[in-house]
């Protein structure tokens, strides 16, 4: 049993790609929990995961994580050959991954309706993603890393995939790090959140705390003053009303007329990436 608190930790991680610079990132992924990485397309999620896994080389910084052989990984490009059947893919994984648990893999396939004889290239996108995930889970890796496992899936297939990931998390010590731009995947599933924007970490911490730290505010345009306007992120003006996200600590800066409520993760993310104010 490993007793360090974080399964992945980076210090000052930097990766440059053309005009885009990721970092410097100080990233911590708590051991034993589900961490979701959110951010717009092009914000640096995939680059972060690829750099962690050593698929691309970091320009600076340190990375501490389990040996790559002990990490289950799913990226957009599958590592299986298209003419294989599900069972051929399983055999290839079984041969190359120490600790492969065929019973467990078979049980996952039954529960998530993956037939051993199905051709990999005939699977729907949802079934394909489930197969890749089940293969990555097949040897009970302590850490599973997935890049956008739910992108392009319909709601039912997304729910199914999250259920599959929940099976991974039933094991003691299991950790999961996955990126998504669909924030509803995180509700009631992710324990921690890493929110990246423009190659920087905007927020990193418990999901519950994000929702406590920020509040969703709505009010009449007349409630806005020169002092309280800069407190609002992603201020959106209608004809009479406005809405946006504020820090809960800044609530006192607004009059009694405004409505303040607990935000969804989606609201925080959406308003965060908007420009600070848009004058009409």
């Amino acid at each position: 049993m490993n007793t360090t608190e974080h399964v992945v930790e980076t210090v000052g991680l930097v990766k440059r790609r053309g005009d885009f610079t990721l970092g410097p990132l100080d990233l911590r992924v708590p051991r034993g929990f589900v961490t979701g990485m959110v951010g717009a397309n092009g914000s640096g999620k995939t680059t972060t995961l690829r750099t962690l896994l050593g698929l691309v080389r970091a320009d600076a910084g340190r990375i501490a994580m389990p040996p790559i052989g002990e990490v289950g990984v799913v990226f957009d490009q599958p590592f299986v050959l298209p003419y294989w059947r599900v069972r051929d893919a399983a055999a290839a994984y079984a041969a190359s991954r120490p600790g492969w648990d065929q019973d467990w893999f078979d049980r996952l396939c039954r529960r998530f309706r993956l037939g051993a004889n199905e051709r990999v290239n005939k699977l729907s996108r949802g079934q394909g993603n489930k197969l890749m995930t089940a293969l990555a889970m097949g040897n009970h890796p302590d850490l599973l890393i997935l890049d956008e496992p739910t992108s392009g899936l319909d709601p039912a297939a997304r729910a199914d995939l999250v259920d599959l990931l929940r099976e991974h998390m039933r094991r003691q010590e299991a950790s999961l790090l996955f990126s998504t731009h669909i924030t509803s995947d995180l509700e009631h599933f992710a324990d921690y959140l890493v929110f990246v924007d423009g190659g920087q970490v905007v927020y990193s911490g418990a999901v519950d705390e994000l929702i406590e730290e920020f509040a969703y505010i709505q009010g009449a345009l007349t409630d806005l003053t020169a002092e309280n306007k800069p407190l609002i992120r992603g201020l959106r003006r209608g004809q009479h009303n406005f809405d946006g996200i504020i820090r809960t600590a800044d609530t006192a800066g607004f009059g009694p007329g405004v409505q303040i409520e607990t935000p969804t993760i989606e609201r925080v993310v959406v308003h965060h990436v908007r420009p600070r104010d848009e004058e009409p």
Partner: protein
Amino acid sequence: MHVIVSPVPGVPLYEQIVEQIRQQIMAGELAAGTPLPSLRALAGELRVSLITTTRAYNDLAAEGLIVNVPGKGSFVAQIDPEEARRHCLDRARAEFRQIVERTRHIGLVSLEELTVMLAQEWER
């Protein structure tokens, strides 16, 4: 143990879990020593996050209703009936206090009316 959670606005999921397990322990449906599902199994079952189940079990342990044994799991604690009664009364008083605070100063409802209402709810 039977627990069902639903995303009701205003009632956090961990509180729903705490409330239901507390009821079952108080009512004697869960006997002392009964093992509870692991944090991870319960999170998977209810489709909630691990932090939610962890918080629920921590609250139940703080109330003395369950015991968390590191490496073994969580078990229903031996409940002292006197203490359980006191907890029950404390919670009722806290909720009564809220009702009084919300109604008294408005001056439209009398204590007698509230007392009648309480009796009616009791008989339901």
